[in-house]
């Protein structure tokens, strides 16, 4: 494409800068507020940088509020559902690609369809099911819910990856005396590492970021995950915004770090997931 002239280039950059400010400003403001002492939060006009930097808001969250607990809950639930979902998805996808399953293509379309279900609809039966099973306020309830939500897409992604690995490779391993399972673990899985990373990341982020499921399936504050714990603080009589924003930083930081580190994997997963299903 022809290089844009200086005038056009200036316009382009101007558009980029305006868009970048609108995009990022809320996060800047979150960080800014979280580093202010309580006295500075309720100032008019607000300060664009803290006059006095402090980590007091973070300290209060971790000592006087159960934020360490929320963080732990989020971590347990997210890691649990990632492990469960990746393990089941890998086995299911392997079955789909290596064995003849009647109606497999219809099943695959069904997988994609389930990805589009409104989650608020599914919450009602889940809530009643978990109540009857006595699983309300357990990590297990959330792990099951998130796995079920992430699983269809994960299976579908991995089918694509496993198909790209020639059947002859694992059959060669079987001829050499390995069992089906050994061939799967030793040969197929290592070859599809990028796919597994993408799927794991996808499940982890879905679980970590989820809100409404945890809102419904936990009622005991000691079982809250970060998103619910933070949103709950909004309803308090006097909202301490510096603490709230510190909480938001704690919840958002792992996502941003993971994302910055593994951007390539994730972007390919998102675009593949959207355009091809």
């Amino acid at each position, binding site marked *: 494409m022809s290089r844009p002239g200086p005038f056009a280039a200036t316009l382009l950059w101007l558009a980029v800068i305006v868009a970048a400010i609108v995009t990022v400003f809320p996060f800047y403001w979150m960080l800014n507020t979280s580093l202010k002492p309580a006295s500075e939060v309720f100032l008019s006009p607000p300060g664009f940088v803290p006059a006095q930097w402090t980590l007091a808001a973070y300290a209060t969250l971790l000592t006087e509020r159960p934020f360490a607990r929320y963080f732990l809950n989020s971590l347990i639930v997210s890691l649990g559902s990632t492990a469960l979902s990746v393990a089941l998805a890998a086995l299911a996808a392997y079955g789909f690609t290596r064995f003849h399953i009647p109606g497999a293509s219809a099943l695959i379309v069904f997988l*994609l369809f389930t990805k589009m279900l409104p989650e608020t609809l599914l919450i009602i039966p889940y809530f009643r099911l978990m109540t009857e099973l006595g699983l309300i306020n357990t990590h297990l309830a959330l792990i099951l819910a998130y796995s079920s939500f992430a699983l269809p897409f994960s299976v579908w992604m991995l089918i694509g990856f496993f198909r790209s690995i020639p059947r002859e490779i694992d059959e060669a391993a079987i001829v050499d005396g390995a069992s089906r399972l050994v061939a799967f673990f030793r040969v197929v899985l290592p070859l599809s590492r990028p796919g597994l990373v993408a799927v794991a990341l996808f499940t982890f982020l879905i679980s970590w970021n989820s809100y409404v499921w945890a809102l419904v399936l936990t009622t005991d504050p000691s079982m809250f995950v970060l998103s619910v714990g933070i949103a709950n603080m909004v309803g308090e009589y006097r909202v301490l915004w510096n603490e709230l924003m510190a909480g938001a930083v704690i919840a958002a930081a792992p996502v941003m770090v993971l994302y910055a580190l593994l951007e390539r994997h994730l972007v390919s997963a998102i675009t593949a997931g959207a355009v091809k299903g």
Partner: protein
Amino acid sequence: MFLAGVIVLPLAHAFWTSLHRIRGLTATFVGLRNYERVLEDEAFWHALGVSLRFTSISVAAHVLLGLGLALVLNELRVARTALRILFLTPWMVASAIGATIWLWLLEPQFGVVNHLLVTAGLVERPLAWLGEPGTAFAAVTAVEVWRGVPFIMLLMLAGLQTIPQEQYEAAAIDGATAVQRFRHVTLPNLRYLLVVASTLDIINVVRHYDIIGVMTGGGPAGATEVLPALLYNTAFRANRFGEAAAIGVMLLLMVLAFSIVYLRVTRIGRAEPGS
């Protein structure tokens, strides 16, 4: 099997619930009574209207801004990856967290948005954004736009990179202006992707609850009560699970209609997955 357990069972259970009246742990079969009651309820039609407005405005803005941003980023020679990462953050971070941040930005007395608007002379006095029906709807829609643009941008960016350079070169030789190149080369190449992205986005926005759930819960006076919010409020605030499930089934039918469009367009039924 597990899949069948975790998806089909709850779905069947949801249908079953929509045909019963639920009181605590007892359920009475009531046939289609729940649907009747929902369809007779003004709140449902109101929520349907709010959902339609919310979704159409958000999706239109997502697609226009996402395409625009992708076109601009695609022209840049430097910092493209860094900017792509930067622009994607609102979409990566949890909606509930993003919505919480916006609650603070829009806070009437000490919020920075009011401060900036008053300083710039755009409004005379601070607005109670989420306290008035009109501004509340505008605010939650704006947050949804902020959250959703990056996703469309990412798809469009991927699409732009598949357009063969030769087509642009040929157009340039024919003396086409930038606008003509956009109309006759870029748009036709992106048409398929635009349809896919819009359909997918409609599905995503129409069923999305978190932003409105955190910011307004559907208020004030139902101004932001989209269907998922009505469903949530009916089930978990009013404890009318049967009616909520009926609302959910109708929402499902809407999503299903768009899903069929999406599957048709992408021809996923026929294509090899992941190919």
